[in-house]
């Protein structure tokens, strides 16, 4: 008896707080879960992340010798400028230079694999000519070439410094090479924005499908007898879609942190994702209400979102750059201001779309 009483009371409370918009939003999310489409979406993003991660690892190990621990290049140096070349090679910790008296000895050792590179030097009127030989068709080729290039640049710098008097603008001294990862910013400027804004795009796309399917199946006509208005439907569907994007974004940032990529300003990043999702979802609602049919709506949405991101990227403080600067912890006051501006635009866009929804007659759709 008491149970029944409690149950009734719970219903009374639930009724008081229940809102058709929340019901619609809940239904949207349940449908997504049932169709397993959201799982597919997450799997896709995981695939992107894995492949991009593979790309980072691959790029770093292929193009940055410093990242391959203990990899040492042995180089043979011959010819009349051997001293200068060996001095330049001394600057590079990853290369060991050895003096060879004759070129044929050097190439014989190269053939045997005793050395990985040969620098054959010749002096020709005030210049040093170097023929650099790298192994053909092996994974190490790129390492050898890029590290050999660094040694040659060191040689060039040394010679330029000697001849600074003959130059009108002597080169600026270089800072030392400490072997920082040259692809460090790739994660922040490409991968992280991709992972943050892919859910945004998916949310917008689902909104278009959900609204236009409702319209084409004629279910919007039932509104005439249901106690919900067009605004409730738009609100409910938008709320559900705006809610799922930041959840995915937070998951990605968590995954990145687990992988040792420190992500700063998570709160601001979530705010940015919410703001951009609001703009995109508002765009997709407007498109699905105004376009004559589903295919036009999808086309307009695809073009619209492409142009939105292209246009916003051209502006100072585009979404990708803003996200990168927040995540890498180089944000300034203006970066945070940009997030607030995105928020303002998002609120304005949602407001405008709601006004549009009041003017639309569901029966005429």
């Amino acid at each position, binding site marked *: 008896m008491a149970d029944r009483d409690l149950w009734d009371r719970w219903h009374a409370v639930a009724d008081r707080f229940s809102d058709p918009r929340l019901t619609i939003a809940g239904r949207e999310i349940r449908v997504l879960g049932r169709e397993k489409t959201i799982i597919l979406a997450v799997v*896709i993003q995981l695939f992107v992340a894995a492949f991009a991660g593979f790309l980072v690892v691959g790029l770093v190990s292929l193009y940055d010798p410093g990242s391959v621990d203990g990899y040492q290049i042995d180089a043979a140096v011959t010819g009349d400028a051997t001293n200068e070349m060996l001095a330049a090679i001394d600057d590079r910790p990853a290369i060991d230079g050895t003096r060879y008296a004759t070129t044929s000895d050097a190439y014989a050792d190269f053939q045997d694999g005793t050395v990985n590179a040969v620098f054959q030097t*010749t002096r*020709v009127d005030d210049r040093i000519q170097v023929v650099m*030989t790298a192994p053909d068709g092996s994974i190490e080729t*790129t390492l050898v070439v890029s590290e050999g290039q660094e040694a040659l*640049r060191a040689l060039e710098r040394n010679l330029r410094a000697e001849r600074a008097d003959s130059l009108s*603008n002597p080169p600026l001294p270089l800072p*030392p090479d400490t072997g920082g990862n040259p692809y460090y910013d790739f994660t922040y400027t490409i991968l992280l924005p991709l992972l943050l804004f892919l859910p945004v795009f998916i949310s917008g796309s689902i909104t278009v*499908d959900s609204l236009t399917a409702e319209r084409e199946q004629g279910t919007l006509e039932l509104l005439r007898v249901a106690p919900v208005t067009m605004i409730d439907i738009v609100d409910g569907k938008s709320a559900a879609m705006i809610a799922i994007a930041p959840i995915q974004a937070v998951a990605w940032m968590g995954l990145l942190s687990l992988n040792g990529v420190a992500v700063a300003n998570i709160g601001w990043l979530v705010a940015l994702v919410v703001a951009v999702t609001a703009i995109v979802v508002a765009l997709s609602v407007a498109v699905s209400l105004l376009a004559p049919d589903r295919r036009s709506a999808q086309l307009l949405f695809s073009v619209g979102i492409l142009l939105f991101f292209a246009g916003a990227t051209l502006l*100072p403080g585009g979404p990708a750059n803003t996200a990168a600067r927040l995540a890498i912890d180089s944000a300034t006051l203006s970066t945070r201001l940009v997030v607030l501006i995105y928020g303002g635009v998002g609120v304005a866009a949602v407001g405008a779309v709601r006004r549009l929804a009041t003017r639309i007659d569901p029966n005429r759709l």
Partner: protein
Amino acid sequence: MRRIDRLRNRLATAGRRLRRIGRIARWELGQSTSSYNRRTLAVVAVLVVIVGSVGASTVALGVASPAPNTDIYRVGVAADSPYNAVIEDNAALTARQPDRTALATGEIDLLVGGVRQATAGPGPRSPTLLVEAADGQKGAAALTAFRSAVQSYNDRAMALESNQTAAYPVVVELQYLPQSTLGPAAPTDAGDLTDDGETESGGDEDNTGSDGTDTDATDPTTNGTVGEANGGDGGDTSDSPDSDADAPPVGDGNGGSLLDRALFGGATSGSPAEIQPPFPFGSLLLAFLFLVPMNFVIQSYGSSVLNERISRRGELLLVAPIERLDIVAGKTLPYAAIAIAVTVGIAAAIGGGVVSVFAVVPIALTFLAATFLGAMFARSFKELTFVTITITVFLTSYVFIPSIFTNVTPIALISPLTLVVMELQGEAVSLGSYLFSTGPFYTSAAVLFLLGTGVYREEDMFSQKPVPLKFLDALDARLSGVRSVGVLTALFLPFVFIAELLAIAVLFVLPIEVSIPLLLVVIAAVEEVAKSIHIFAGFESDRFDRSVPTALLLGAASGVGFFVAEKFTAVAQLVGLPDLQLGQAALQPAGIGIAPSTTLLLLAGPLVLHTVTAGISALGARKRLRWYLVSLVAATAIHAAYNLGVVTLYG
């Protein structure tokens, strides 16, 4: 007479079919253009104009910052320092007040200090800039970025110098030669590319330099022919009459494998700054352009196919006296034509040639085929959207990412886009590499269309079944007797090939001790699934009786089909993939890349293996899904053990 009549009849039928396909294509085209009405297109045009003008004005005003890495590294530098110009030129760097406490609190990442002059003792012979970096990876990365910014600033300054000998005191020529550990590969041709190489600033100097001493080295014909006469080892040329003893050996590139030519990415001569490690960045970006319009085409195509199903308009087509294949061909034709036209247009715009077009067309066909099958499976437009996104993401990564490694490893050739990159770099593409990279795409597009056409029938088009069940239906639609099982297994081979190559590409970064065993298991699993999934589909739809002899018969048929089809992977040999250790692991169990004396044993081995393991999984497939999975694991284990044995025996 009779034969001519028959021929005439056949021609007439073919003509009728072509006319029907053409009619459906015209109808499809009219449908899709009318659904994008004028107002929609006008809105699109207005949007493009607005964004275009905003973009153009920001670029004109100089406030545009399209680089996503704008201002990510903050450098503390005095206002009067010459390094301000460096920072201004580089998008990723931004100048801040030089403040040591800011460095400690993480407000700035680098602090530019004074200059230390070169010393006579050990250490660099040129002045060094003292820079303090913040702790951690970011500080180190910022320093590396700053260093390369200074370097490119200096390069630009040197190009303006009047005394070019002092500005460019070093001239480099880069050449690639095989080492003996790699086997007798053909020597390469460094001299030939010298002429095409980028020698903008140091161009004339380089030419004079080459004339000075290296005549022998840069002359490909004389040394090359001598090298070949010596037995092709390309090694010591000291015994050749027309070159002095100190000249480096230079071989002849015309007979070299594709890999040798693929290595010539960047410039191979000039000042040290101009030497490029082989990384074809520009060509890659251009190649990516080909993929962008495909997404729009498949979106339109997919919704047209699904619309037919949801509005049940397809029913009218089905009752018309037209073959299903003709309907599908007619519906696809306009989209394929648009995709090909766009491809040709892009190729013309970016300077690609026939090879680019012929490399991208199979990608476009695969996009369309996958979308068609996806649209046949999807239950709603929402589901279709996800299917489309999946196809886009998967195919884009599959074709784009390997092509990044165009100049590094032959694995890159698994993607036809690599051929585009190679053509844009001015390299020749051999027929073997074309077949290797596009073959799987052509055949898998055909198989996907075939599967989709199989379910282009009333009971599948207008029913709401989950995607996996539809997939089993599509497989079952292709089965008729025991022989069809073998044929279907053979048809799966392109997918098996694609999956195995993808596994190689992904595992290729891991150390070889980890990647090879992992690869063997993945390959075994992929092959076992391909040999048994349709048998499972056949049992599930009660096409076959669930007796043990039937299962064994089907397994044997499947194994034989796979064995025969597998022989076609020999095309991989054409591009030198078996030279790679991972390639060996993948291909050796199939009897590829092994000396003929051992082939007889290896010919019988795979046949027995494939029939036995397919029989095991077919036995499991008779019962429910759970038993099928158990038997699949068992078959995979046996297969992986066999693969491991072969690789350790002959590896």
